[in-house]
């Protein structure tokens, strides 16, 4: 018996007779995913995880709106705080319906990106949704509170979703000559500028007063350890001990690393690759140690936070070999004269 995919005509092994297929289900104009499509599929996978995390029991309770959402208002300017509080109250009072809508929207975004005919509308929808959630659900990622850190997910995971949707938008401005995948939709200059702004802001947040304080990072990591599985809280506690009373030094090093990464997109390919690797490594450390995998083990995590998104973005900036077009040469025999 042939297996599903073999028998779909892809290998040609049906009933043990190689190459005797007479019919085929495959669409004749279908193409295997290229690098950008693969990155889009990773983005869709993360959106799907978001949607299903939103289906956890806690999200259907009043506490999701009145505690989690309203909690984002703390430290924000009065006008923004009022908007967040109002939205949180409405969500809390209609917890079941509002959360069902949140799940549905994220599920549609995920499956929309994954299904080729709807990828553009889903990516556009993800940008609109991300901006809405960044504003109400994350309080603009806390960037106005002065308490955010790259370690805890500044400048907010959802804004990185929006950036990725733009960078992975399925249009081409010279696909053959684009130096990296993210350059295909916006062009290399605009894509590099977005990378610079993102990682430059990470560098800036690392130097915020609260992070420079001797116990700043230590306190953040200790707080993150609470409610995590034993192995993760032990890791957080160990790292917290290592950075205790070293807040200023660690913040300066972290800011410097982020700054190097920020300018990495403008460096030659070899140096660029090194900084991309550095970005992916730092994002991994942040995701595990600082973000606790987006707090997904607590039962109240709504997304995996910035870690995997920054890794995905790094992949979109990975320099690739650009094939130099060979100039056309005129065959000598064509113009050899007619006499």
């Amino acid at each position, binding site marked *: 018996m042939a297996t*599903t995919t073999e028998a779909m005509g892809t290998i040609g092994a049906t009933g043990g007779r190689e190459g005797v297929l007479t*019919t085929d289900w495959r669409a004749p104009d279908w193409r295997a995913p290229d690098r950008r499509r693969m990155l889009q599929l990773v983005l869709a996978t993360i959106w799907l995880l978001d949607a299903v995390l939103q289906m956890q029991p806690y999200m259907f309770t009043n506490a999701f709106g009145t505690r989690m959402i309203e909690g984002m208002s703390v430290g924000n300017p009065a006008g923004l705080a009022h908007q967040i509080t109002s939205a949180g109250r409405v969500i809390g009072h209609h917890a079941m319906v509002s959360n069902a809508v949140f799940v549905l929207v994220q599920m549609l975004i995920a499956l929309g990106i994954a299904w080729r005919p709807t990828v553009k509308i889903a990516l556009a929808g993800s940008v609109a949704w991300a901006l809405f959630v960044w504003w109400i659900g994350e309080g603009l990622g806390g960037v106005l509170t002065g308490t955010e850190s790259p370690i805890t997910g500044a400048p907010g995971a959802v804004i990185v979703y929006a950036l990725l949707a733009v960078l992975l938008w399925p249009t081409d401005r010279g696909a053959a000559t684009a130096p990296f995948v993210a350059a295909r939709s916006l062009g290399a200059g605009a894509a590099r500028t977005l990378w610079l702004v993102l990682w430059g802001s990470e560098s800036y947040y690392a130097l915020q007063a609260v992070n420079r304080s001797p116990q700043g990072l230590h306190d953040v990591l200790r707080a993150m350890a609470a409610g995590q599985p034993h192995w*993760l809280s032990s890791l957080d506690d160990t790292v917290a001990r290592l950075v205790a009373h070293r807040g200023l030094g660690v913040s300066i090093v972290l800011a410097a690393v982020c700054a190097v990464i920020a300018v990495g997109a403008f460096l030659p390919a070899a140096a660029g690759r090194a900084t991309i690797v550095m970005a992916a490594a730092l994002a991994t450390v942040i995701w595990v140690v600082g973000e606790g995998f987006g707090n997904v083990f607590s039962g109240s995590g709504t997304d995996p936070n910035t870690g995997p998104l920054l890794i995905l973005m790094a992949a979109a900036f990975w320099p690739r070999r650009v094939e130099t077009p060979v100039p056309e040469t005129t065959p000598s025999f064509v113009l050899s004269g007619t006499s």
Partner: protein
Amino acid sequence: MLQPTWLVDTLAGVMVATSTYCLIRLVVARVWRRESHRDTSVAHTADGVAMAGMLVASLRVLPDGAWEVVFAGLTVWFAVRGARFVVRHGIGSAGGDHAYNLSHYLSHLVMAGAMLYMFVEASPAASGSTTTAGAMSAMGGATGRSSNLGALTLLLVLVLFASAVWHADSLTRFTTTRRALVGAGAPVPSDNALLSAAGGAGTDGHAPPDADPAVPSRWLTPRLETACHIVLCITMGYMLVLML
């Protein structure tokens, strides 16, 4: 903390519908003598029935021990099939089809393994519960927050969701009707015969000459099988998320 009943019941209903379709697919292929992929359909049917029972206790049809045997068997089956494929064709990609063939075994291996893992770690019976709420709370609390298995659970969730997305991308890979392969060794049937045979052979890509042309085409297309796979992966991932 309990899941909303309407959500659990809806998912259980979707699982029952999915497994019923996969069972019908098996029967139709048998009755109309169409070559089909029994391992995939059997696995999908078992996944759907088992998950419906985990979601709503009244839908349990087998004791947990029996399900553990079933999914252990399916895990071994897909592991062996995958290993044979790798031995024959290697791991390195030789085109888009190779990746899809390899991912087929991997995703079914992970699905069977994930089901086995759920039954071992968090079956309703483990908590002695026989109610919907009890079943779901058992799933939510069986592993505990201090378990090192949380990372494994998250890994399984990510692989299942990646599989769902990968298959959703491949939906446009298939047409709703078959076309003839030029230059194939067997005679190429006429257009009418092709359209009639399109549904009958399910996913085997080769309709036997005596296949019944009366079987409606659209009900056995690869797209429907892929859709079943996507729904099962998402539901399985959801149940695993409750174990995080």
